[in-house]
């Protein structure tokens, strides 16, 4: 906060397109949040539990996974494991973001909360560090606010209706598929998706609920280790 370039605001001409994209993402987050709220209360979670997930966990895929495993009758710990495993990718987003955001002290605690798919995607790839920081904060703050508003609205509406009657049992799988879709353009990712789905489906009748999705993480580990150029013992 002492260095001048840390405080520098990008020019208005560069800020405008970032703000427009951030507003679009925040609107989608409101809709996605509303679907999460409806799915969550439809899964048997209370309004308070639904809001704690959105406020504290604040990571869409992990939240849907938690509600999904609970809905399927899995134990809360299987649900927690699935949510945590899906949350692991957020740690990797910190790698490119840390040198740009340069968080320190208590600021790090607030910054960390906003490290998610959307803020990372919006930030990395911008031409200047100032614009990268601006994109991170503009996206993170607007998305976080509308995510909470969306969740609350969806949970309140969802409680008033039978989720299945409104097709909301298709909401979570459709939302995940839409999130997955861009990654499926890469053949290696497509194979990992197919293998993960196949392993999980095969385990449904034999494994405790929640385990099939966790087993797919094993597919990711195998795919990641196999895809490497070398297999030496690393020091």
């Amino acid at each position, binding site marked *: 906060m002492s260095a001048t370039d840390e405080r520098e605001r990008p020019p208005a001409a560069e800020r405008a397109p970032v703000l427009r994209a951030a507003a679009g993402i925040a609107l*989608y987050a409101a*809709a996605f949040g509303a*679907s999460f709220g409806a799915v969550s209360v439809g899964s048997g979670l209370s309004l308070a*539990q639904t809001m*704690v*997930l959105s406020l504290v966990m604040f*990571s869409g895929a992990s939240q849907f*996974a938690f509600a*999904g495993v609970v809905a*399927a009758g899995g134990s*809360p*710990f299987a*649900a*927690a494991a699935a949510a*945590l495993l899906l*949350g692991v*990718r*957020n*740690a*990797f987003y910190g*790698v490119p973001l*840390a040198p740009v955001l340069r968080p320190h002290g208590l600021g*790090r605690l607030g910054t*960390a909360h906003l*490290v998610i798919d959307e803020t990372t995607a919006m930030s990395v790839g911008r031409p200047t560090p100032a614009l990268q920081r601006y994109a991170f904060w503009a996206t993170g703050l607007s998305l976080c606010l509308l995510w909470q508003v969306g969740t609350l609205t969806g949970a309140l509406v969802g409680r008033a209706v039978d989720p299945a*009657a*409104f*097709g909301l049992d*298709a*909401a*979570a*799988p*459709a939302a*995940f*598929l*839409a*999130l*997955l879709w861009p990654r499926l353009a890469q053949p*290696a*990712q497509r194979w*990992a*998706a197919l293998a*993960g*789905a196949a392993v*999980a*489906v095969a385990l*449904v009748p*034999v494994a405790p*609920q929640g385990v*099939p*999705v966790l087993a*797919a993480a094993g*597919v*990711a*580990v195998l*795919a*990641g*280790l196999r895809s*490497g150029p070398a297999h030496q013992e*690393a020091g």
Partner: protein
Amino acid sequence: MSTLWVGLVVAALGCYLIKLAGLSLPGRVLQHPRVQRVAAFLPVAMLAALVAVQLVDGGQRYALDWRVLAGMAAAVVALLLRRGFLVVFLTAVVVTAVLRLLT
């Protein structure tokens, strides 16, 4: 505190701490090539598994609802037409809801 609350709070705080760790850990660890390769496959494999399980799981047995599958098929068409998240999502929900209303 119910077990559900305990699991929920552990998961929520854990997810936050994972984010904090990413910003705090030495880059050397997370930049390890093997760690990065596994991380690249984690979301896609797990999310695909979640979608598949949600479509077939009837509580440790297979249970398919053709109306949900039809809704998902419509969502795939919307994705192939390069529609945005909201359109894809609403397509699946509306198709499933209408089919359920009619049948």
